[in-house]
């Protein structure tokens, strides 16, 4: 059924279709509409779940951890400061290998406080042991939530769906909502083998020391490696059943014969597609590549898809002050590891909701500027002079 929905509403509908039994959250812009809609579904009897207004994001993450550990499919969502407040628990959920799904409505981090989109929040959690899927559109958000539950439960890994705050969460788009019966067919009921149950007592979260801790961590890595094929397979299967798929971990656009390739995450890809089309019409050999999955990192796929590129530009909405963009660094590492000498230009942009317009993106693709390893590049051109004081 095709409906005109706000991104948050669309995601809430997708969550409802996955039949979670516990939803716990704490409101934070731009995540609020997701949980408001879910609260309404529960109030209206359209979703048979416990809706819990937690006392903080830390509490919300802990609530869903407990619920999943007790065997109930669960959901939470947050953004920005809320995600950071959850951090300790999110690491713990991953370490305990609990299959949870959450949505991060990507938003900048304080200070200064800013409610608009960039990727600093979820990128700060990249080492937490969660699968991270960055979606381009509201339709992909819907479809990815459904895929995510199956993925999480099959791999016993938590999954974070990262969707751009406001750009997606507050934007109305036509969205196809799958039928409940079709979702039930795709997503089997949740049976957690390690669930807390007096009939089968188990200790979860006990101590570990030097003689075995590393084995747990390695197992996490192996699970992530295994997840790569599962992500591809479940996305392909989703495509067969629903007619939509997203390339698994990577989605290329007009990469055939592309000499210059722009890499991005999230909703920015929509603008990038338009820019690439325009430049292609003018005979320029450009293409684009979107990392749908940042964790696990699709190193092999990147190497394969970038094999013909002569120039690679990474445009990302987060960075590590004093170092540079994390995405660019990982792309460089993957290519270098595979013996590629193609330079990778890292550009940081769109921070705190600053618009990345077609002009800005076109300039990045057009510029033949050689890779600048000295100063970090920001886009669009920013103000050095008259910069605000940090009072």
């Amino acid at each position: 059924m095709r409906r005109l929905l706000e991104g948050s509403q669309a995601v809430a509908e997708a969550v409802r279709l996955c039949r979670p039994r516990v939803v716990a959250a704490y409101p934070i812009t731009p995540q609020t509409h997701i949980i408001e809609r879910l609260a309404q579904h529960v109030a209206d009897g359209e979703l048979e779940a416990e809706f819990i207004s937690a006392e903080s994001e830390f509490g919300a993450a802990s609530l869903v951890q407990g619920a999943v550990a007790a065997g109930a499919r669960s959901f939470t969502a947050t953004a920005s400061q809320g995600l950071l407040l959850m951090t300790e628990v999110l690491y713990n959920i991953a370490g305990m290998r609990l299959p949870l799904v959450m949505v991060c409505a990507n938003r900048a981090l304080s200070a200064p406080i800013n409610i608009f989109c960039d990727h600093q929040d979820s990128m700060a959690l990249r080492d937490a042991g969660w699968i991270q899927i960055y979606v381009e559109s509201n339709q992909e958000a819907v479809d990815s939530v459904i895929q995510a539950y199956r993925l999480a439960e099959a791999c016993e890994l938590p999954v974070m769906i990262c969707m751009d705050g406001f750009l997606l969460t507050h934007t109305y788009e036509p969205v196809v909502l799958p039928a409940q019966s079709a979702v039930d067919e795709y997503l089997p009921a949740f049976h957690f083998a390690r669930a807390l149950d007096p009939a089968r007592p188990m200790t979860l979260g006990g101590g570990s020391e030097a003689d075995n801790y590393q084995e747990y961590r390695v197992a996490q890595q192996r699970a992530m490696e295994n997840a790569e094929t599962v992500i591809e397979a479940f996305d392909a299967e989703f495509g067969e059943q629903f007619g939509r798929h997203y390339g698994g971990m990577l989605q290329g656009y007009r990469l055939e014969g592309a000499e210059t390739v722009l890499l991005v995450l999230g909703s920015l890809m929509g603008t990038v597609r338009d820019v690439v089309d325009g430049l292609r019409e003018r005979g320029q050999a450009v293409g684009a590549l979107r990392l749908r999955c940042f964790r696990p990192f699709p190193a092999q796929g990147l190497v394969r898809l970038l094999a013909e590129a002569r120039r690679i530009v990474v445009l990302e909405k987060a960075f590590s002050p004093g170092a540079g963009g994390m995405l660019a660094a990982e792309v460089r590492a993957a290519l270098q590891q595979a013996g590629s000498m193609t330079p990778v230009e890292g550009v940081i942009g769109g921070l705190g909701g600053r618009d990345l317009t077609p002009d800005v993106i076109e300039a990045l693709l057009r510029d033949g500027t050689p890779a600048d390893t000295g100063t970090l590049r920001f886009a669009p051109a920013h103000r050095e002079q008259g910069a605000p004081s940090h009072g």
Partner: protein
Amino acid sequence: MDRRDAFRHNVLTAGHRACSGCGEAMAARMVGDLIGPDAIYINATGCLQVFTTHNQQTAWQVPWIHSVFANAAAVAAGVEAALRGRGKATPVVVQAGDGGTFDIGLQCLSGMIERGHDVLFVCYDNEAYMNTGVQRSSSTPHGVRTTTSPPGRLSQGKHELKKDVISIIAAHHLPYAATATIAYFPDLKAKVEKALGIEGPRFLHVLSPCPLGWAHDSALSVTVSRLAVETGLFPLLELEHGELTGVMRLAEQKPVRDYLRLQGRFRHLFDSKEGLEEIRHLQALADTRIRRYGLLDAETTWDTHSAMHGARHGRGGYARAAGPAAGEGNDGS
């Protein structure tokens, strides 16, 4: 039920790594066996978690989960939410130390109670951060020596008062909150059983001496916890919907000095004029609590004397208007 029959479930079984004389281990063993195996246990980070689940071993014969330090009440709330609608009422029990209750865990605890989750929260209070090597917490009484409240030329130990957590909890107007200690097993038993019969958030505050941190003889844990009650420093209370509904009367009031003298954490107070002043403050605090809760004149047959002798008959609880008079239990089996 005889005290010796209590430990039939071995919810917390032998072989764990608690120090000898650990009040928390005794309390958890009592509470666990009173609740039994048909329950789900959530533990905060702390001594109990460390000494029972050391390095891939477990002393728990029940479903048990530990997430992080601050969130035990929230994890429990999630477990309880997951169990709702499954048609059987499996008790959900949190176990936390004073750090996980008074300090780092207070926010999640308050949220859990406010939302009315059907969870029993048990705090084993040993009045400092013992797991990390005896640092002060907000539960540490004033005057106490810890590694982060050391007595010195300018200090007599901890400067601040022990947080009145039971009043904070009671202010949530929850169905049931009570204090207890390992010295009075029938009393603890009555309170656990009462808590199990009530739906909604319940809070049990169990004073649990720590021979290491309190620096007392490990054979004296029960004696020390009894003196905490008999001096009035740790009143045994029951509160229902925020109202005081029961106290254990003091058969006689013991001087606070009797309690302090057994513990190295107070020893420095006896060495100086300033220290003796702190002892007077501690005595005044005990007197205040005795007045506040009517510990010497409460209308109950259940007092610190009968509770000791009544133990053999398994008599417990304050609710009974009439029971065997003090001393009647002496000839019990």
